């Protein structure tokens, strides 16, 4: 069984479909439950998997701390657990497959610095209750800190696309001298790009995103404002996770950490 | 002059109506002729209002047939009935508090063009209706700001806003005082002269004898008899209605009235509240019945509310000689005061709760056991006792209070206060909408309580009732006490002159 944090995001849709595909290829029965960002629902899903007697649970935690009890419960019932995307804290799992978000954040910061010519004010749209996003933003801040002429003037929360759009509009209104915006995800970045265009600031502001789903990649190609996106590879992640599960079932040993390093997509192309 | 040989405009044949297990109408027959007032007389719960609601299409009869002007008649809703020439003034007020008088009167047939309301015409038209009827109301006022009596007048205006062949008046005077009732009688005379047939329902025998042409008595949902007025008397009608003789409607005093030497249990001095009443002084002795009479809006209910812990009136209230400050109804109840309110639907009952729950509503604490736990057996017994004592007509004590007839609901309100065994009992229009039999019961209870030493303060708009029961009379006019008089040998005319403010 697999428990995913949400299915209202292209990243997780891609993750789910690659898992399904890989499971078919390896001839493994796979059930997917969606926690809808609710840790309690995730725990219930895991409990139901235990009742059903699955052999391995692949879990994409809603939250790294809180997923502990669910994982502990499964392990107590003798079920092996693999985490994808978000790691679990305070508990050992059989294997973790995930993007290195912090490194991704650093890459985003460096890309930003390069794109804006090493100076100016930048802003961030974040989602402070999600650990992977917090890691990205930390990485971004770390990278910017090494460029003394760049300042982060505003960090606003914009979780959904409309919220991000409003946040970006307000950032531009309050700080007309901003030259770059980093969106924690594709949605945030695309929303920021729309805001920049409707404020007629496309010559001034550069936007960088994170995730690298199709819509954002297209935008990087076609939209002058979207200068780049840090690409995650959910398809790889899903594939690796299910393959690992297959190995676990067969009793093979697996790596405890299987990091998937994000790539950088710019107008110049993709760099893994 | 309408001729009695006129063909009936409306004929009701063998109508029956059941609500689940409850039978409201068994076999009802009625034939109404144009230009005549046909009164329906029956005890509370006899089925009068149900029949009227069938006539205007709110209920569909279980069986039976109706013909209007010789044609079969089965309306599906009140608008359809109105189009066919039947209008109704409902017993229970059916107005929207949030809208103006004009908007209420012309609801569902507002003057309009393409669905857009012509506001000016609306007000003008309503004003004309009100003026034609001679009613003292401003059509722009919000209904929520009116007193019950004024709302009753608006209800009448709404019912009569369009010409109709048959006009139904279901207890239109139950909250009116004599002067407003006079206005209504004038209107009725005018309608009669135009050949309109009027179905009239009331429990006030004097007015029935005055305005009716034909009278039909119904009992337990069935037709009993129809007579012309001149062939009957109040006593005869009451006998037909309740199935037995009833001599004097005001029962005699059980003990001597308390002497003036006895000190009052409740004494009010110079009580005032801005805009509501001024310098009201009155007192009640144990065992005494003090009647509070006045025209509508004279401020009686507001004084009673002040005595029950509402508002912050200036002046003093003394209980047994000690000044008290009543902060809330809970406080007043603790001091032994009970208040039978005038608006039973809004202030009296929880309509969806059972008769039992309603009866035990105030005495809850007294009936309860230790640690605040209720004692169901004791509650049931108490409720049953009250149902028997007041002869409340209900299928069982589990029945929701809302499905009882109006008069029986009124009895529940009285019952819930009797349960508390109050030292001071305030009754605000206690017999509104109550049939003669039940009225007698209520009067008898008032006498009994007085004999047992309860001090009783009774507000009523029915002068005969006040005169028949009270030991002393406090007459209010325009938010002040006009006069306090001994009731013995007092003539209605004297009282009216004070109430109308003619005597200063």
């Amino acid at each position, binding site marked *: 069984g697999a428990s995913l944090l949400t299915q209202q995001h292209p990243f997780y849709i891609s993750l789910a479909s690659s898992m399904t595909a890989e499971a078919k290829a390896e001839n493994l029965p796979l059930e997917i439950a969606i926690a809808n960002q609710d840790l309690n629902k995730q725990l219930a899903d895991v409990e139901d998997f235990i009742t059903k007697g699955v052999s391995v649970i692949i879990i994409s935690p809603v939250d790294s701390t809180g997923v502990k009890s669910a994982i502990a419960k499964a392990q107590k019932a003798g079920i092996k657990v693999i985490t994808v995307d978000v790691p679990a804290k305070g508990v050992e799992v059989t294997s973790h497959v995930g993007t290195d978000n912090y490194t991704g954040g650093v890459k985003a910061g460096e890309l930003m610095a390069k794109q804006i010519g090493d100076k100016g004010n930048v802003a961030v749209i974040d989602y402070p209750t999600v650990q992977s996003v917090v890691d990205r933003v930390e990485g971004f801040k770390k990278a910017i800190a090494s460029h003394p002429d760049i300042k982060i003037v505003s*960090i*606003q929360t914009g979780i959904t696309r409309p919220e991000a759009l*409003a946040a970006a509009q*307000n950032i531009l209104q*309050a700080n007309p001298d901003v030259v770059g915006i980093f969106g924690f995800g594709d*949605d945030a970045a695309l929303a920021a790009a729309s805001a920049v265009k409707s404020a007629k600031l496309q010559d001034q502001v550069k936007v960088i995103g994170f995730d690298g789903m199709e819509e954002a990649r297209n935008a990087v190609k076609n939209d002058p404002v979207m200068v780049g996106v840090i690409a995650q590879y959910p398809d790889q992640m899903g594939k690796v996770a299910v393959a690992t599960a297959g190995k676990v079932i067969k009793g093979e040993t697996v790596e405890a950490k299987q990091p998937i390093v994000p790539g950088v997509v710019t107008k110049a192309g993709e760099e893994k | 002059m309408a001729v009695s040989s006129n063909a009936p405009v409306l004929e009701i044949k063998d109508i029956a109506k059941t609500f689940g297990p409850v039978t409201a109408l068994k076999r009802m027959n009625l034939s109404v002729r144009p230009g005549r007032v046909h009164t329906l007389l029956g005890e509370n719960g006899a089925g009068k209002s149900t029949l009227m609601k069938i006539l205007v299409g*709110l209920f569909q009869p279980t069986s039976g047939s109706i013909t209007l002007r010789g044609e079969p008649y089965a309306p599906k809703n009140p608008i359809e009935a109105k189009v066919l020439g039947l209008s109704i003034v409902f017993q229970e007020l059916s107005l929207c*508090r949030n809208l103006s008088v004009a*908007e209420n009167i012309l609801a569902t047939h507002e003057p309009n063009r393409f669905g857009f309301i012509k506001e000016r015409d609306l007000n003008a038209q309503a004003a004309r209706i009100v003026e034609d009827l001679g009613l003292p109301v401003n059509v722009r006022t919000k209904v929520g700001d009116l007193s019950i009596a004024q709302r009753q007048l608006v209800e009448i205006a709404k019912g009569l806003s369009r010409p109709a062949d048959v006009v139904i008046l279901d207890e239109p005077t139950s909250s009116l005082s004599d002067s407003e009732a006079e206005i209504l009688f004038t209107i009725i005379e005018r309608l009669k002269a135009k050949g309109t047939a009027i179905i009239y329902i009331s429990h006030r025998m004097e007015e029935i004898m005055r305005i009716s042409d034909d009278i039909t008595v119904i009992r337990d949902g069935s037709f009993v008899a129809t007579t012309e007025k001149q062939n009957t008397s109040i006593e005869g009608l009451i006998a037909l209605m309740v199935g037995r003789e009833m001599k004097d409607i005001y029962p005699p005093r059980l003990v001597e009235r308390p002497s003036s030497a006895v000190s009052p249990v409740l004494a009010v001095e110079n009580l005032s509240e801005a805009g509501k009443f001024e310098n009201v002084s009155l007192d009640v002795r144990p065992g005494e019945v003090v009647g509070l009479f006045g025209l509508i809006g004279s401020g009686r209910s507001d004084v009673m509310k002040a005595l029950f812990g509402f508002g912050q009136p200036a002046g003093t209230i003394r209980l047994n000689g000690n000044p008290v400050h009543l902060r809330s109804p809970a406080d007043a109840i603790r001091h032994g005061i009970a208040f039978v309110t005038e608006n039973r639907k809004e202030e009296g009952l929880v309509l969806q709760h059972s008769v039992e729950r309603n009866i035990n509503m105030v005495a809850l604490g007294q009936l309860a056991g230790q640690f605040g736990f209720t004692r169901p057996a004791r509650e049931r017994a108490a409720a049953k006792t009250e149902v028997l004592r007041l002869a409340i007509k209900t299928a069982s004590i589990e029945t929701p209070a809302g499905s009882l007839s109006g008069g029986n609901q009124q009895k529940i309100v009285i019952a819930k206060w009797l349960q508390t065994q109050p030292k001071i009992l305030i009754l605000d229009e206690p017999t509104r909408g109550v049939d003669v039999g039940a009225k007698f019961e209520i009067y008898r209870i008032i006498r009994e309580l007085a004999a047992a030493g309860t001090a009783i303060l009774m507000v009523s708009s029915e002068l005969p009732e006040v005169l028949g029961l009270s030991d002393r009379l406090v007459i209010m006019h325009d938010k002040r006490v006009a006069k306090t008089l001994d009731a013995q040998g007092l003539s209605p005319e004297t009282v009216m002159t004070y109430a109308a403010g003619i005597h200063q």
Partner: protein
Amino acid sequence: MTNSTETKQALLASPLIRQYGGIVISLIILCLVFSSISPRFLAFNNFMNIMQQVAVIAVAAYGMTYVILLGDIDLSVGSIIAVAGMVAAQAFSMGFGFAPTVLITLAAGAIMGGLNGVLSAKLMLPSFIVTVATMGIYRGAVSLPTNGAPASIENETWLAIGSESWLGLPIIIWIVIALFAINHIVLSRTIFGRRAYLAGGNREAAIYSGIRVDRLKIIIFMISGVMAAISGILLSSRLSSAQTNAGMGYELDAIAAVVLGGTSLAGGVGTMVGTILGALIIGVINNGMNMLAVPYFYQLIFKGIVILFAVWLDVRSKSMRT
């Protein structure tokens, strides 16, 4: 002369102030506070920003006003907003043009709203529970065509709604204004509107007067559905895509706007003017706090406090009058 102009102005202003005193004062206080801290707050551009951001809520709140006036509630509008966007995206991808797509989207809104109305009126279920249920049903349905993925919309006219201007004002604002005018007139000047007040004020009395309350309720829920669908059009054109989680939680913002505007949840009392003022308050709070870069958690707290304060001011100013 000055004097007479002043008197006239005072006369014009007074009923507005009297009726909407509390909320107008709250709005003014908010604007003063924000603009005293951030000078950019009062810019014309920013006002346009606020209006655009608030458009989606305001339009949904118009529909919600009828529903609440009737003493009911519609929790499904957030989901209808999302379905509308998705229906439009699907219609475009099937090759329909702009006008047919608009019609299809509005029809979808009317059907979803109508379903709420029918379930509530004909099966006699409380609208709260009906719309909690359909909130889930519609939210589930929105994901069916794309399996949860957003669908992008590329029709130029559609996208123009969210990005272009006309006579110096963004089109989206014209729409908000036009719909306000229509709904205001319907509610305050037509028989239909009057019946909503009657039925909301005293359902039994309305039935006794012969109003077909059931039919009225169904129509009103349909209006709410259509308004939500228009909201969905505005949102999807602003985002140039249909998101499956679009409009989530917007029902509460719409209800808050309506109630802030003085419409009573008990039914029978309320106006469209109040609703648009309520929506503006919500917009001003959100925008102002963003302008001041208030951290997200404090925004939640502050918004709650402002709503409480505004409603309290409104209740108080009304009770003072009587």
